[in-house]
């Protein structure tokens, strides 16, 4: 089996390459869109005190732990033929998988961003108020100061996206050469008793996860070094 796995990994198997391609395309797209939603959402929560902040924070924390199958179910119902966006015919396509992942990942990025910002915002706000810097300029300075930890939250979102299986299976349908991604392929191949492709994909997934985690670790170490030097 090892020989077959290595042949798959280093050979030119079209299905494996296609699965990796769809996975990366879906994960990158969903992470980027989630970052565009999650970062402003997190900054708004972390940098300001406002009425309803506690309830918004609780909702965000709940959504951070949203079970993927629930997210998949919601998106499935919305995109199904009789659903509100049924006319778009997006079900069982990569965009549908991206939408499901955005529902899952945006709150994670928002929650992490809010934590990052809330650690620095009180001190930045006091300092800026003391020298007459207010409004948008103060917010921009806060965002600039948190930019490196923001990368960590986006990478965490990407890590979640690439490893997710439940929601993408439900709305993507695991269609060969169309919506099959690494996680759904591993599950299917394992169920069929064809372990070579499953193991090969598992190795690729682990390597990607390792790279993402290494980047996160490096950024966190760098940030800590800068703050304590």
């Amino acid at each position: 089996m090892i020989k077959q796995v290595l042949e798959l990994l280093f050979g030119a198997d079209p299905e494996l390459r296609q699965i990796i391609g769809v996975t990366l395309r879906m994960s990158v797209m969903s992470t980027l869109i989630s970052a565009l939603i999650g970062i402003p959402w997190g900054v708004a929560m972390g940098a300001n005190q406002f009425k309803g902040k506690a309830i918004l924070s609780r909702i965000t924390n709940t959504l951070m732990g949203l079970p993927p199958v629930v997210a998949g179910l919601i998106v499935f119902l919305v995109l199904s033929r009789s659903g509100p966006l049924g006319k778009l015919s997006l079900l069982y396509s990569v965009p549908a998988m991206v939408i499901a992942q955005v529902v899952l990942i945006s709150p994670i990025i928002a929650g992490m961003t809010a934590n990052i910002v809330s650690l620095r915002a009180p001190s930045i706000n006091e300092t800026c108020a003391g020298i007459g810097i207010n409004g948008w300029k103060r917010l921009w300075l806060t965002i600039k100061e948190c930019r490196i930890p923001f990368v960590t939250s986006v990478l965490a979102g990407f890590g979640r996206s690439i490893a997710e299986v439940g929601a993408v299976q439900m709305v993507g349908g695991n269609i060969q050469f169309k919506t099959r991604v690494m996680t759904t392929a591993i599950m299917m191949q394992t169920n069929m008793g064809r372990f070579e492709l499953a193991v090969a994909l598992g190795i690729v997934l682990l390597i990607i996860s390792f790279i993402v985690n290494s980047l996160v670790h490096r950024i966190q170490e760098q940030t800590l070094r800068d703050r304590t030097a």
Partner: protein
Amino acid sequence: MIALRDVVQQFGGRVVLEIPGLQFLPGRRYGLIGENGSGKTTLIRMLAGTSRPTSGIIEGLQGKKVGYLPQSPYAFSFSVLENVAMALDGRNDAKELAQKALVAVGMESLVEARGERLSGGEAQRMALARVLVRSYDVLLLDEPTSSTDVRSMDFIETTLKEYVEKTHCTLIFSTHSPAQALRLADEVLYLEKGRLVEQGPAQGLFHSPEDERTKAFLRHWSLNS
């Protein structure tokens, strides 16, 4: 003149500051002393406008230029010079004035260093330069030398005196050191558990305090200094 009337500040239902009446006259230097939790920071934050009183009125700050140095100022990740110049954003001579302000706090050798890499004492001096680079009608400093060493403290106190003489601003600062209050302030206010216990000319309050609580605080300080 700044006036506080029936000012109360509560956090989570607990009264942390309660001042029925208090006035700060223009051009005078006021030192707030008291132990941790006495309400010094709360009072300064309310005057700075970063915290609103639960009830009561603060008058005399509308339209005034108010400078404020918080207890834990933020050191931005850009250079020390830019950290100070940011207070003068838009002025052509911002960097030149920032350089002068840094010299005044003894930080001329660190102008190119990144703010986030400074030690606690250096960051505090940089933050002081950032405030002192502009002119204010009212200057509020929350423990401006809490992280600095003795030599830097002398330097900073001299700089502060010169700044006040030059700008004629009202200076209100808090300190853990009654000796510093004596050196810098015209008037000293002793706070305890969120209440103003005693207020008076610095020399008078130190040498003949009237309230037993002030006497106890100063006795404790003189025994431990």
